[in-house]
Structures are given as structure tokens and as C-alpha cells.
């Protein structure tokens, strides 16, 4: 066995992963090669020295000093809670419910108006609401026509630049993942 192979065995010896077979081969070489034997003895001494060095004890008052400094800081739990803004969440929830109800009313406007006009109590309200319903119908019809025209031109445009858009989207996706990972690993000073 040549000396360069012994290097691998010495590393395995330091990792405590040397097999019996490898140990035998290594011992055979060490008994014949003075240089490798000297290397082995130094590595062995390094391991022993490291294992004998005890974990150095930190000063006893470290906790007290750190906790005193923490007391002067903004508590972490306040920071965590700040991220949830309950007022904003309430406003968003209100508008979401309002928008949802408006959509349901809009979709079912014809049947609601029919229902109201059949009822003697609400027929007056139905008469009042029917021009509004007509206006909304006309408005949405016009809006949809305009939107369809605009959309078709946007679709044509997108079709011509589909590869550019795809590349930009992929790049943005990559940047987003990078930023997320960076933010996740970032440690505040």
C-alpha cells in the first residue's frame, strides 16, 4: 500500500469509521513506514487533546446580564402580535362580505324583483327597484362589451409576446423564492 492511500485511512480513523480490515492494512503499513507512523501519532494526539478539552464554563451571571438587557428591549411577543392588525382584518372582512352579498344580489336580481312584485307588501319596492335593475343590466352589458374588446386586444398582445412574458414571470418567480429564502435566514442585528 502506498502512503497516499494511508491518508484516507487516517481520516477515517479520526472519524472513528475505520473497519477492522482497513485497520489491519493501516497497521501493516505503519509498522513499515516511519513517516506515516509519525503522522498517525500526531493525529492520535490531536484527537486525545480535543477530547480532553472540557467545555469551557461561561460566567455564572451571563443569564442575569442578558435578561437585564432583554428587559430594556421591546418584547418579542409584542413584535409578533404587531404583524396581525385586527382593525385592518375587520375592515377587509366587512368589505369582503359586502362585495359577496352584492354579487349574489346582482346574479339573482331578476328572480328577487319577480318575488317582490308578486308580494302585495313589497310590489311598490319592486317598481322602485326595476329602473335601477335595468340601469345595472345596461351598464354591465356595456362594460362587458368594452372589456371584451379591450381583452381581445390584450390577448393578441400577450400572444405576440408570450415567450417574453413567460421568461419575465419565471425570473420574477425565481427572485421571489430567493427573497423569501434570504428573509427566512436573515438574522436581525
Amino acid at each position: 500500500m502506498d502512503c497516499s492511500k494511508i491518508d484516507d485511512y487516517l481520516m477515517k480513523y479520526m472519524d472513528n469509521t475505520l473497519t477492522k480490515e482497513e485497520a489491519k492494512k493501516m497497521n501493516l503499513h505503519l509498522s513499515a513506514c516511519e513517516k506515516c507512523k509519525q503522522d498517525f501519532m500526531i493525529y492520535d494526539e490531536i484527537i486525545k487533546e480535543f477530547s480532553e478539552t472540557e467545555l469551557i464554563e461561561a460566567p455564572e451571571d451571563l443569564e442575569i446580564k442578558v435578561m437585564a438587557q432583554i428587559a430594556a428591549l421591546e418584547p418579542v411577543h409584542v413584535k409578533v402580535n404587531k404583524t396581525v392588525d385586527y382593525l385592518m382584518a375587520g375592515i377587509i372582512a366587512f368589505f369582503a362580505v359586502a362585495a359577496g352579498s352584492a354579487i349574489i344580489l346582482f346574479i339573482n336580481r331578476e328572480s328577487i324583483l319577480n318575488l317582490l312584485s308578486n308580494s302585495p307588501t313589497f310590489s311598490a319596492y319592486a317598481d322602485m327597484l326595476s329602473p335601477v335593475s335595468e340601469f345595472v343590466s345596461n351598464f354591465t352589458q356595456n362594460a362587458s362589451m368594452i372589456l371584451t374588446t379591450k381583452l381581445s386586444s390584450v390577448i393578441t398582445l400577450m400572444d405576440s409576446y408570450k415567450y417574453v412574458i413567460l421568461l419575465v414571470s419565471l425570473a420574477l418567480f425565481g427572485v421571489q423564492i430567493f427573497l423569501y429564502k434570504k428573509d427566512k435566514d436573515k438574522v436581525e442585528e
Partner: protein
Amino acid sequence: MITSFKDKSDYELIQMCLKGNDDCFSELITRYKNLVYSIILRMVNDKEEANDLAQEVFIKIYKNLSKYYPEYKFSTWTIRITTNHVIDYRRKKKQETISYDEIDYEMASEGSPETEYLEKEKTKMLNDVVNELPDMYKIPIVLYHQQGLSYQEIADVIEEPLSKVKNRIFRGRKMLKDAILNMKEGESYGLL
């Protein structure tokens, strides 16, 4: 109250701390202060400096508790913050060499004064050669041989691939061996 903290896992303590119970953080400091202090002392070689840096590291850990993800062990995350903090500090200070003589390692004193002296000399020599290693080799070597971390844990700490960690440890060991050989040849140290 303190006894109940001792039964909690690191992650449970962190969650309790994030809910407003700062006393839990004191328990986390007790658990990891020797580890953090040992690593820092190994890197800066000055007890006062190590004490200040250990406090800064724990403050940093406290401020970033909400960013801890249990995909890594808390000790791994703590060591990562510790090593990065000391590297930043040294970069700012541009500190190169400080004497190791101030560190008084406690030796098992069972032998004769001569044996004790030789043992202390051996330890000092290893400290000297480890101290001379560049951080990129020193940190993995210390974490592996002194703190008992696995290759994978070290890879998580220094955020490098496993192969790079292994290479650095192998290369670092050879550098240590060569340095000791040079010292032995230059002066008659009683290593062996």
C-alpha cells in the same frame, strides 16, 4: 416554576417565550451558554471579549426567535448565529492575533508537577496551532472534534455542502498535523 421549564423542549420554550413568557429565555441561556461561550472563546481568545460577545449573541437570538424554524436543531441555529456574529465582529475589528496565554484551561491534575506541566504544554500547543488556522478550517474542526457535531450539522451551521465541510475538516487536520510537525522540528516540544 423553574423545574417545569427544565422539562420543556427547546421548541416549547421558544413558543412560550414568543407568547410573552420571557423567563423561558433564561432557561435557554442556561442550556446553551457554555456551548456559545466555548465557541466564542475559541475564536476570540479573550475572556472579557467572549463574555460581551456571548451576551450579544443571546440578545440576537432573542430578537430573532420568531425566525427560528424547527427544521434545524436549536443548537445548530444557535451555533450558526454565534459563528456568524463572531466572524462579523472580527471583520469589523480586523483582529488578527491575540495571545492564548490568558486562557487558563482547567486540567485534570492527578499526575506529578512535571506531567502536569507537559500536559499543559501539549494543550497550549494544540490551542496555538488551532488558533493559527483560518476560520474556514477552524470553525468546522472545532465544531466536529470539540463540540461533537456531525458533518451534516456543521453543513447546516455554516450553510455549505457536506462535501465542502468534509474537505475543510480533512484539510484542517492536515494543516494542524503539519504545524505540529514544524513546531516539533523547530523546538523540542514534548508532544509525543
